[in-house]
C-alpha cells in the first residue's frame, strides 16, 4: 500500500491529510477507477477524535476504497479555515485521482458529529457565493471552477447539521465561529446545512441513533428531508438504541467485547456499498 501524509497549508497553519492507498491487484474488479472517501473525525470542532479516524479509514481501505483522514484545525482556529482545509483535501484527491487509481467522479466526503457538519458544509457551500465571499483572501477559485471542490457523495455519521437554536449543538458553533460571531445571524444561516441544501447537493448516506442525547436525530432527518424535496438519492439508517459517538460499534473502537458488536455495527458495510455504488452519482 501507499501510506503517507500530504500537508494542507494555509498561511502558517499546516494540517495533515493521511492517505491510505491499498495496492491494486490486477485480477480484481475496477482496479484503477476506485472510490475515494475523505474522513473528518468528530470532536465538536475543538479536537479530532481518534476512534473516528484511522479505524474508519482502514475499513474502507480493506475493501479497496482509497481512504483519507483530515486532521482539520479546531478551536481556537475559526471558520472558514476547517472548511477551506476540507475543500483543499477534495481538490488534492481529485487532482491526483489518476495517479492514485481513483475515479475523480466518485469522491465522497464523510464525517462524524462535528466532522459531519464539516462534511455537510462541503456538500452545501461549494456552490454558494456567500461562502466564497468569506474566503476571498485565500483565492481558492483562481483559475478553477467551483465543481473542483464538490464532493460526489456525503457519508454523514450522527452529524451536526442544524444551527437553529432549538436543535443545534451550540458548543460546535461556538468553537467554529467564536463567541462573537456565533451571534451573526447570516453566518449561522449559512452554516445551517439543512437550509443550504439545493438541487446540486450530492447524494447522501446518513446514519444516526434515535437515542442520541448529544446531537438529536432530527439533524439527520431534516437533512434527508431537504434532499428528498429535490429528488436527490438518499440512504438513511436510524437505529433505535445507542447514544452518540459509537464509531464502528465494535470492539475495534470501544469497550464492547469483540464477539458482541452493537446493533449499529452493520452501518459501515452499508456505507462501503454506498461508496462503491456508481448508480447514485448525479
Amino acid at each position, binding site marked *: 500500500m501507499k501510506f503517507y501524509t500530504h500537508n494542507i497549508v494555509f498561511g502558517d497553519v499546516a494540517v495533515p491529510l493521511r492517505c*491510505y492507498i491499498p495496492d491494486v491487484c490486477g485480477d480484481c*474488479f475496477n482496479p484503477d477507477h476506485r472510490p475515494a472517501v475523505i474522513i473528518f473525525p468528530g470532536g465538536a470542532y475543538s479536537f479530532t477524535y*481518534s476512534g473516528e479516524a484511522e479505524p474508519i479509514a*482502514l475499513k474502507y*481501505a480493506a*475493501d479497496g476504497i482509497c481512504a483519507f483522514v483530515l486532521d482539520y484545525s479546531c478551536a481556537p482556529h475559526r471558520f472558514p479555515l476547517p472548511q477551506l482545509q476540507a475543500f483543499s483535501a477534495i481538490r488534492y484527491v481529485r487532482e491526483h485521482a489518476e495517479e492514485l487509481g481513483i475515479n475523480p467522479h466518485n469522491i465522497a466526503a464523510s464525517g462524524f458529529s462535528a466532522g459531519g457538519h464539516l462534511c455537510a458544509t462541503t456538500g452545501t457551500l461549494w456552490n454558494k457565493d456567500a461562502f466564497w465571499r468569506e474566503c476571498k483572501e485565500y483565492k481558492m477559485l483562481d483559475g478553477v471552477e467551483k465543481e473542483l471542490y464538490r464532493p460526489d457523495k456525503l457519508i454523514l455519521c450522527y452529524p451536526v447539521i442544524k444551527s437553529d437554536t432549538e436543535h443545534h449543538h451550540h458548543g460546535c458553533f461556538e468553537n467554529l465561529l467564536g463567541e462573537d460571531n456565533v451571534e451573526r445571524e447570516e453566518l449561522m444561516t449559512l452554516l445551517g446545512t439543512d437550509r443550504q441544501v439545493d438541487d446540486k447537493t450530492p447524494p447522501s448516506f446518513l446514519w444516526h441513533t434515535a437515542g442520541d442525547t448529544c446531537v438529536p436525530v432530527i439533524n439527520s432527518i431534516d437533512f434527508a428531508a431537504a434532499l428528498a424535496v429535490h429528488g436527490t438519492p438518499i440512504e438513511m439508517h436510524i437505529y433505535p438504541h445507542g447514544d452518540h459517538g459509537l464509531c464502528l460499534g465494535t470492539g*475495534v473502537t470501544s*469497550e464492547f467485547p*469483540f464477539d458482541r458488536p452493537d446493533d449499529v455495527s452493520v452501518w459501515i458495510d452499508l456505507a462501503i*456499498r454506498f461508496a462503491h455504488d456508481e448508480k447514485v452519482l448525479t
Partner: protein
Amino acid sequence: MKFFTHDITVGGITVPLHGYIPDPLGYGANQDNRPAIIVFPGGGYEGLTCWETEPIALKYAAEGICAFLLMYSYAPVRFPIPQLQAFLAIRYVREHAKEYGINPNNIATTGYSAGGHLSASTGVLWNKPEFWTYCEPYDPLNDVGMEMYRPNKLVLSYAVLKSDTEYHHHGSFENLLGDRITDDALLSLVACDKQVDDNTPPAFLWHTAEDDLVHVRNSIDFAGELAKRGIPAELHIYPHGGHGLGLGTCVTSDVRCNEPLDIADWFERSVRFVYDESMIKA
C-alpha cells in the same frame, strides 16, 4: 498506523515481512495486547498469488488485528527454506510483541492453498526434531527453545495439507521438495495431517466442496486429526465454488463490488476465532 518492512534473511536469501500495525486508540479494548496474524499467500510454491497478499493483511488490520505479510521463497528455492522463513517471522513478531502492542501468546499464522501448507507446517513441525535436523546449517535453535516458533493458532484457507497420492496437490510438493519428492520419509514429514499431535495449535479451516485443485479432504482430514485429540477446530465447508476464492469480494476477484460470493462470510468468523482467547494455551 505503522506500515513497514522487516527483512528475513536465512541461507543467504532475504525476503520481506511487511507489517500493518494499526495505531492503538488510547482507549477501549485491545490496546496493548492485540492478536497478531502472519499471512502466507498461495501459489503452489512456485509463485505468490497477488490477491492473497495485501488485501488479506488489510482486512485483518481493519479489525484491530496486527497483520504481517510474508513474501516467502518458492521454487527453485526448496524445503526447508520457506518453513524457516515462516518460523523466523513468528519469532520476529513474538520478540517485538511489546513494541507493537501484541499479545505474544496470541499469534496466528494463516495461509491460502500452498500458503496454507506453509501455515500448517508451522503448526506441526515446530516441535519435531526431525524437522530441525534439516535446518541445522542455519542454527535457528542456537539461542531459543522450540516454543519460540510455535504459532498459537492456524487459519487455513483451501489449504494443501495432505501428501497422500490420492488427495494431494502434486505440483506443490514437487515445487517444495524438488528431487527429494521421492524421499518417502521427507514426504511424510511434510504431510501436515500426519504430523498433528497434542501440541498442534487450534485451527480454523475453510474449503469449498467443489475445489478441483486441492481436494476438500485436505481440510476434512486435518480437522479430524485435531478433533481426535480434543484440539479446538472450526471448519466451514461451502458447497459451491472453485479454488482460490480469497475473501470472496471485489478486492480479491472479479466480482462486482456489492455482490460478494456466498463464501465471503468465512472471514468474519475467522476474526472472532483470532480474537478468542479461551482457546489459547500459554
